[in-house]
């Protein structure tokens, strides 16, 4: 871990980096899609942010600076994987376009996270377990199907519906300015 320059309070940088991890992960994923490429981009971004922490003025917003760094790293991952002929979700031209849209998607991230927390509370425990198994534990649909004792099609349909409803709930919550 690098030494901190005197002009950057350590606590402020660490707090900001921790607070915006979800947004940075969201940016990398919005630009590169799901999968290992986005994880690699996030890891590279975090390393560069640490190295360049002296470039950040604590009196300015952290996220615009961090996403500018992330964009550079996302491009790097894209370039390296393409050279290695590894599978990427987006074609070059689409990826470039998605990088522009990714910034817009993550800038209201704190509000989006708050909306997600409110909306997730309304998901039944049973469906929440399936969501957790899929999205955070990384289980496959056949694995979830076996555990739940339900058909794979039923699991897919359920995931789609709940995910769609969550998205709608979040957008509505954001549109209402966060009112419950």
């Amino acid at each position, binding site marked *: 871990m690098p030494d901190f320059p005197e002009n950057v309070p350590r606590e402020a940088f660490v707090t900001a980096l921790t607070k915006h991890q*979800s*947004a940075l*992960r*969201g*940016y*990398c*994923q*919005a*630009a590169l*899609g*799901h*999968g290992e490429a*986005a994880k690699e981009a996030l890891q590279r971004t975090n390393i560069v942010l640490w190295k360049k922490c002296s470039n950040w003025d604590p009196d300015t917003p952290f996220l615009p600076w961090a996403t500018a760094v992330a964009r550079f790293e996302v491009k790097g991952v894209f370039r390296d994987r393409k050279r290695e002929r590894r599978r990427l*979700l*987006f074609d070059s*031209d*689409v990826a470039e*376009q*998605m990088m522009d*849209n*990714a910034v*817009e*998607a*993550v800038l209201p991230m704190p509000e*989006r*996270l708050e909306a*997600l927390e409110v*909306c*997730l*509370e*309304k*998901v*039944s*425990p*049973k*469906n929440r377990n399936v*969501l*957790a198994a*899929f*999205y*955070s534990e990384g289980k*496959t*649909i056949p694995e979830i199907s076996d555990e739940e004792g339900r058909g794979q099609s039923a699991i*897919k349909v*359920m*995931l*789609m*519906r*709940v*995910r*769609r*409803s*969550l*998205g*709608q*709930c979040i*957008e*509505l*919550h954001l*549109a209402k300015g966060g009112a419950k």
Partner: protein
Amino acid sequence: MNRTRLEELFLASYADELNELERTELNKLLRDDPEARIFAARFLATDALLADELETSSNERSFATQNNRFIRIAWFAAAAAILMLTTITVSLLMPPGEAVAILAGEELQAGRVLTIADQEAKIKFGSGALVAVEAPASLEILGNNAAYLHYGVATVRVPGPIKGFELVTPANKLVDLGTSFGVTVEQSGKTAVTVFEGEVTVGDRIGAEHIFAGHAIRVNRELGKPSEAISYDTTPFLDTWKSSFGIEILQGNVRFAQPEERVSPGEVIDRNSLLLIPEREGVNLPAQMPLNIIEPGTFTVRFYREGSYVPPGESTAKEIALSKAMLVDSFLLQYNPGLPSPTSKDKPFVSEVRFDREVIGIIAQKDLLAEYDSLLAFPEADFSGQIHRGTAQNDEIILSPDRHTIRVAFDIEDGVDQIRVLVESHLIAL
């Protein structure tokens, strides 16, 4: 933008099941379509948030099971249900004489028992299930997706994605597999179930009976004994059926469509009454979608499409676009006499409808109605037999200042008078 297809492809991508053809299709959908890319970016960013949030909650649960002092399950901290009342007084099951009124919007925890002494109550569960109960009745909240009807008449509707709402009765347990049924429980405990839409199971897994739409049974309390089929009759449930859609007041020459009329609104004929028909629920109305009315006021113009010919002497109103996307439930208000009748001509039909949610907008122009049938009409609805949909020159539509009430005066001529009313969806709960 094909939102559904994008969601399917991203789900397959998350599950690592996207083949090359689908990957190419995904890129084609996103290429040069800014709206699709904005949606995709938000969707993917939200997936990242979702993964983090679920992981955080899982870590909290792991900690809780290791340390009994902190047994806390985050998602049960939310209220199990929210009570929506119209103008009734609800008594809790407390010592005699200690009745307590509950206010509309109050959040109810599991274990709460409601005694409905007058009129009706509508309860929205955390799962999205809706239960409308008619007095006299007693309903106990069991959880986010379950209740016990001790006695009374109730309609249960499960319009959202979360199925499996359980309604326990003295006779047995009913599970809604989607989407609506009526149940009567007498003080003696005798229970009858009428399934309007979808499927209901009666009893536990082993030996459970499946009851399908259009059928009704009297539930047998004895284990292992089959239920008795009875005649299908929705009449006892018409009030709770109507309440379950959030209709607080229905006055004038208007009635609410029965369950069996909902599926084929284009074919329902009633010379004596306007008909209010529930259509789709939880529809994502895109921003910039043109509507005819979006603000309170009185409207007596005939609506024409932008750029179309307006006969001399007639006035018209411009189409107005919503400024942002909204989640709505859709209702049709129509007069359809079938063949022209001398008694229906020039007879004004006046009606008033009050919703428990705000009216977002109204569509009253025939081409606009038809254009959005695929988005807003009940699946399989067929309006091909209807001519002259929309309103005519002497019709009047009023949207109240609080946006909850519409009043219409249709000056009936030949053909169908019809408007589509879009209200704020109750499907925020998941």
